[in-house]
């Protein structure tokens, strides 16, 4: 079974700290001090793909649409066990999901695949759009937020994660596209040595026009006007009053937060 996995590189912004700054353009953050990593969801997607390759044979190809730095992440994918990697060279910061989707769809069309897997969303923008968009463009069925997968006889039996832990069960005829939810597996550790070894594996780079895409075709449909830093709660808003009053206020806040 041939599997294509789409991966993305993101800045590590998991810190509770003031490391994020908006750059001069006002439309991006200063990436200078930030460390890059593979998008967490994509790591699970890769692991899932590799496990099914181990069971059923075939190939795993890692793909990405982004700038040169992203080769680090693709190398990591190769080190994890992907057979080859292809990066479409483009500036990920200025285009939107639909443009990336178009790019990846154009690339994936040229690759052999029975299964395409995406991370359910990205750590940085969290749009959760890419997978289903690409599926629609490729004209294949998809399921988002897959938390369990069983592949047999040209079919994928999946469980989608719904609110409150309930799961939606589907059977998809291959070829199909799945977006993978964290927790579906335990991604393997990628040792330093294996990353070195992976340097020998094939990592090809394609340009947009090699894919027959014009930059115009990629102009964002949703335009980013500006970014604003969320004022970090440097200090908690303390709820005053008696135990009862404070508790009452907090209860309201909790209700309005909608978490419950």
């Amino acid at each position, binding site marked *: 079974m041939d599997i294509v996995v789409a991966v993305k590189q993101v800045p*590590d912004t*998991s*810190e509770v*700290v003031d*490391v994020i700054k908006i750059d001069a353009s006002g439309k991006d953050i200063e990436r200078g*001090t930030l*460390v890059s*990593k593979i998008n967490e969801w994509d790591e699970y997607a890769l692991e899932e793909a590799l496990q099914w390759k181990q069971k059923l044979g075939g190939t795993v190809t890692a793909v990405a649409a982004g700038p040169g730095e992203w080769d680090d992440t693709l190398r990591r994918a190769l080190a*994890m066990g992907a057979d080859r990697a292809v990066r479409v060279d483009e500036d990920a910061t200025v285009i939107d999901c639909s443009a990336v989707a178009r790019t990846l769809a154009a690339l994936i069309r040229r690759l052999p695949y029975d299964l395409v897997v995406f991370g359910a969303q990205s750590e940085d923008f969290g749009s959760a759009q890419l997978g289903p968009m690409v599926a629609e463009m490729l004209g294949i069925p998809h399921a988002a937020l897959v938390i369990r997968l069983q592949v047999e006889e040209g079919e994928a039996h999946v469980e989608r994660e719904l609110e409150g832990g309930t799961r939606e069960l589907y059977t998809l005829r291959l070829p199909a596209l799945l977006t993978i939810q964290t927790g579906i597996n*335990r991604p*393997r*550790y*990628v*040792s*330093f*040595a*294996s*990353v*070195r070894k992976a340097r020998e594996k094939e990592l090809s780079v394609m340009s947009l026009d090699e894919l027959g895409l014009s930059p115009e075709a990629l102009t964002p449909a949703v335009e980013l006007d500006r970014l604003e830093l969320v004022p970090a709660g440097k200090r908690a808003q303390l709820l005053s009053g008696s135990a009862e009053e404070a508790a009452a206020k907090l209860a309201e806040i909790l209700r309005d937060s909608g978490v419950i």
Partner: protein
Amino acid sequence: MALTEYKYSDVIHRCFRCGYCKFPTSFVEVNNCPAYARYRLESYSTGGRLWLIRAWLNDELDWSEHLGEIVYSCAACKNCAEQCPLPFSGDIVDMIVAAKGEMVERGSIPSAVKEFLENVDRQGNPYGTARSKRGEWMEGTDIEEYRGQEFLYYVGCVGSYDTRAQQAARALGRVLQKGGVSFGVLGNKENCDGNDVGKLGEAGLFEALAEENVRQFKDLGVRRIVTLSPHAFNAIKNDYPRLDSAFEVLHYTQLLRDLVRARKLDVSSGFNAKLTYHDPCFLGRWNMEYEAPREVLRTIPGVELVEMERHRADALCCGGGGGNFYTDFLGGSEDSPSRIRARDACATGASVVATACPNCLTMLEDAVKAEGLDDRLKVMDISEIVSEACPPKGN
């Protein structure tokens, strides 16, 4: 890797499981192996661990998170190497590290270990806190950046990020200043020393860190290094030379000993307490430095030094070695080695347990609280004790 390719394939089966590895020389307690102390199951003793490793490499046993935890619960404290009567005793810890290395290569390691290594790879420290915050421990001090001073003061990850250990890092800074030592630190440019990364079996990452550090040290013209942490001391002293690095490295207790001997450090304010000293594994068993810290303590007026039943080469590890201060496979029980150690210390009647390692410091600090002994027993790093013994500037 099949058993045949394992570096110790011709040795590992030679463990008879006689059990000496569980004891100190005196045999007073069977729990001198921190992992065995915590679980008291043969699987967690060194012998059991070696037999399991062999079974795994021999495909008699599949890898599991639990197997990973058993292997990684080894704190690399070297008690077994000290006690094993057989000729290969010197290799035991390496046998376990080699097995960890194989797990690393296969990508099958416990989640906590994975986090540790990925954090170090990304941010240069196990906690995953930003590199750009490594120097924050210095805020409010006038400690200089390193630019060609006599000593590079290498702080290490725990001293740089752990709020409790930061106090020791700052205290050592003050003491070195009072001792008139010319030194500087790397601040945000400092990177993980890799000692525990190596003990977790990630040889590749360790080599990379070591090469990077050696390069940086050389570029800055570093000749002499003093470390806060025995872990860093061990790596720089015993492992870095493989990369033809020629630095003189001292653990700070050795430097302080020289200073007090040379009367360059005035500790006349003294420190009035009955205290006991906990030997850090990477200073003691790994580098046979038992005297320097004790000599420093003895020279401080008012200090009454009493020993725990198990000390020096027989000291019980705090359970923080081999990355366990982070991965914590030995925590969460009254049988956790750090808590046994806290009780050992308390049994001496001392009011202070001193140590000379940021890892031990944080482990014991937590343990003393967990044991509810905080009102009776204070955990202090020797740097803090010396700092209190130094008269305020101008005197």
